[in-house]
């Protein structure tokens, strides 16, 4: 990957409702070339980072993400990931990536059985060179907004996540019952990221924090060494 491909594609599923938020994080917050990709498209062009935004894709009347994973665009997302391209799923995007098997684990109903919209304190885990407390700070604050963010994984998967340092973020005060307070994970290869908290709600002056910018930069830096140097 080179700096030339440093542009961002935000996928729009029917029912996505944080597509503009994600767009603004990358376009407005970081000043990167950013565009939307409609779910019926089957090509992602030269995108360096593909973002699956929050929302309720296809209404999520079944399990969250269960229909979206079959969307035409998901074939291209899978190929992009397999080629080593960067993928970020935020909230509903995280749920879709888990359903599609691009990230380990599953997200079930919050233990409160209620939706939760609030700002959470998160502990940053050491998940590699770009994504670690040294780069982001030990604690960050990001909003959440979800009814199904309770992360679950089987025993061997759980051990694997820890052994390979795939956990990105943990809740300091668990809002949804997630196993091991897990708020975000990456895949084994380190190019697919998913998180329930919203970096796309933490970048404007009036937001609860601007930590979303750091999270977005960390993810970009993991795939774009040049970008990492430029923002260092």
């Amino acid at each position, binding site marked *: 990957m080179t700096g030339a491909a440093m542009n961002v594609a935000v996928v729009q599923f029917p029912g996505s409702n944080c597509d503009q938020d994600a767009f603004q994080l990358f376009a407005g917050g970081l000043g990167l070339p950013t565009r939307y990709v409609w779910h019926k498209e089957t090509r992602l062009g030269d995108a360096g980072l593909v973002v699956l935004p929050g929302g309720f894709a296809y209404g999520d009347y079944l399990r969250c993400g269960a229909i979206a994973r079959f969307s035409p665009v998901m074939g291209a997302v899978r190929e992009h990931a397999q080629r080593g391209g960067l993928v970020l799923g935020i909230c509903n995007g995280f749920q879709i990536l888990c359903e599609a098997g691009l990230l380990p684990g599953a997200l079930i109903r919050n233990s409160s059985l209620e939706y939760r919209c609030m700002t959470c304190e998160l502990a940053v885990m050491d998940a590699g060179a770009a994504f670690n407390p040294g780069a982001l700070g030990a604690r960050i604050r990001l909003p959440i907004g979800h009814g199904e963010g309770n992360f679950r994984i089987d025993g061997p998967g759980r051990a694997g996540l820890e052994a390979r340092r795939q956990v990105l973020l943990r809740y300091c005060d668990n809002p949804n019952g997630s196993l091991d307070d897990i708020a975000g994970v990456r895949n084994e290869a380190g190019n697919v990221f998913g998180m329930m908290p919203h970096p796309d*709600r933490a970048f404007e002056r009036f937001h609860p924090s601007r930590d979303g910018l750091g999270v977005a930069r960390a993810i970009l830096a993991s795939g774009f060494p040049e970008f990492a140097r430029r923002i260092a």
Partner: protein
Amino acid sequence: MTRASLPPNPEPGLNQPVTPELVSRHGLLPEEFGRIRGHLGRDPTLTELGIFSVMWSEHCSYKNTRPLLKGFPTERRAPAGGYGRVLVRAGEENAGIVDIGDGWAVAFKIESHNHPSAVEPFEGAATGVGGIIRDIFTMGARPVLVTNSLRFGELENPATRRLLRGVVAGIAHYGNCVGVPNVGGDVYFDRSYEGNPLVNALCLGTLRHGQIRRGKATGLGNPVYYVGAATGRDGLGGAAFASRELSAESASDRPAVQKGDPFMEKLLIEACLEMMAVPGLVVGIQDMGAAGLTCSTCETASRGGAGIEIELDRVPQREAGMNSYEIMLSESQERMLVIVQAGREREIEEIFAKWDLHAARVGKVTDTGRMVVTHHGVPVADIPASALTDGAPVYRRQARRPAYLDGTSRWTPEAAGLADLDAAGARDALPRLLAHPTIASKRWLYRQFDHMVQHGTAVEPGSDAGVVRLRLGGREKFLAVSNDGNGRYCYLNPRRGAAIAVAECLRNLACAGAAPLAMTDNLNFGNPYKPESFYQLSECVAGLAEACRFFDVPVVGGNVSLYNESPEGAIDPTPTVAVVGLIEDEAHITRQFAPAGRGRLILLGGAPAELGGSQFLGIVHGLKTGDAPALDLAAEKRLQDFLLAQIRAGRVSAAHDLSEGGLLVAVCEMLFGPGDPAAALDLSGLPAPRLDALLFGESQGRAVVAAAPADEAALLAAAGGAGVPAAPIGELTGGGALSVRTAHGPIEWPLAALRAAWETSIERAMARPGIG
């Protein structure tokens, strides 16, 4: 004139004779039936009777309130700062529109879904949100916020908890999925709402002046499209249902409650806004809300001075075998009627195909002035469109001042022998007030609502007003919204209580740093055929109108919900008011939360000794009595202007209006923010004939501001010049205690305990064993 009867309906069951009993079951009076015959020149068919019954229901026709509503100012006398002009007035369209400058405008309205929510709280509240969002995007605006005004019975009652849980889950289900942030509202708990909760939802959207769309059918031969969800048998006659009193049998009306599909709504928003952005494509558009296909067709025709013809066979239907009565009266959700420029049918069909939505051509615009409905090739309804709208009856009901007012308005604590609090009594009372669900933190509700989606929320729920950033082309402005409406005040003094609702909304906006733009209101009252209820209604409307004229705040729309009665009686008269305001400069956004660190607290507006209508009387003494607090409109205006001026001058670090619970509750709420400061108050210099009135009385026209020590002198001097009473009442401190010196002795509370009482009260009441 006698006209020929229509041919028999293809559905034999619809050809039964229209008997007086059938007329009565449709909620129509004998004289109204006579009026229908006059409009038609013959007897109506059963389908037509159904159409008239929903269009002439209070919900659609405002037949008992229209003369009253004429008293509202609908225009602004003096548009300020290059904005504030009303572009679409109340009653013209689905929502009013106000100019916010630079070629942009906001469309907003509040609407009730009380009766459906009483019977089926989840779907009732959910479809209430869906309906009001449709009213806004129908105008061409992109919805950017919703708020709610909610009223419930007492939380100790398990039935109330079931309703609250259902209503909140329903609002969350719908609003969260559609992706419109829920940035505020107000919630009261009072026995009068037992069995008849109020669920009022507001939506606001932004648009350019040139994007305003109208619900008008014009252009002979233009095709009429039906877009969105298919029609089913749900919600049959919901508007008529909403225009009756709730009774023990209301649960069997559950089929009159609709079921919402927020995903469909989200697709409709996007598809409709995409369609409306194409120049010249859309001639008129209206959502199918109350009275569904009936209301949207006859209203668009009537507004356009045209006729409309629709073929029911072309209407997408969810189930087979629906007859014309059912199709016309269905209130299935997420449907729109669109009149398209002839010759451009393919363009709209392509847009809706992109979103995988129905777009069915169901009819055309005519020049007959009539609404003609055919089914299986046979005309089943043929009615002058204006007969259903402008031709609806209008009544001036009889009003009688309720007898209870003689007793309550003369009540005083002295005459009643009500002992004043001593310091120990005051120490006990404060945590009780803070824990009462009307005063307590509403976090249990708003944490279930997505209040941050669209990444524009600048002040989250929990402060005096919700604030969102509006992106207007290259510019940013901030919009504040506040909801208010104290039913207790309106019960004790309908006219003044309603005026207080307006004043408090404006005070909230001033505390947030916003200049008011315009108002929308939802009138929730009992049965207008009862003279005491009608008195409350007409007095409240007069109070709202007076206050709006005084403050030059136009009313740009709203909703009327009557028959709010359960077997226990009518609700307290409850006009819920919402005012929106603008903040031009981000630096002027002000929250109610005092910052950590040193600061002074200053009481603005003085300390009259009033107890009437207070939460204190209700919570501590079990009384709903006394007169509503006095309201001096001129003093209120001076206070608001002063607050805005001082905020703009940068001298205010936090501001909070005094309302339910009075002075001490307001100070506590300022301390319960992220900064977590403590405070030492000295109230010994304030006149205090009664300690209870000083600490917990609800006198109007007041606010507390926090200011840096260096700004205090300038702020006090400015108050003197502005004629606003200002009294330094204490300091922000560290240390974790609230201490108050009074002429009756010192009182102190550990803040953590007060905060816990306030913050977790509703959560504790709503907790479910084993879930968390």
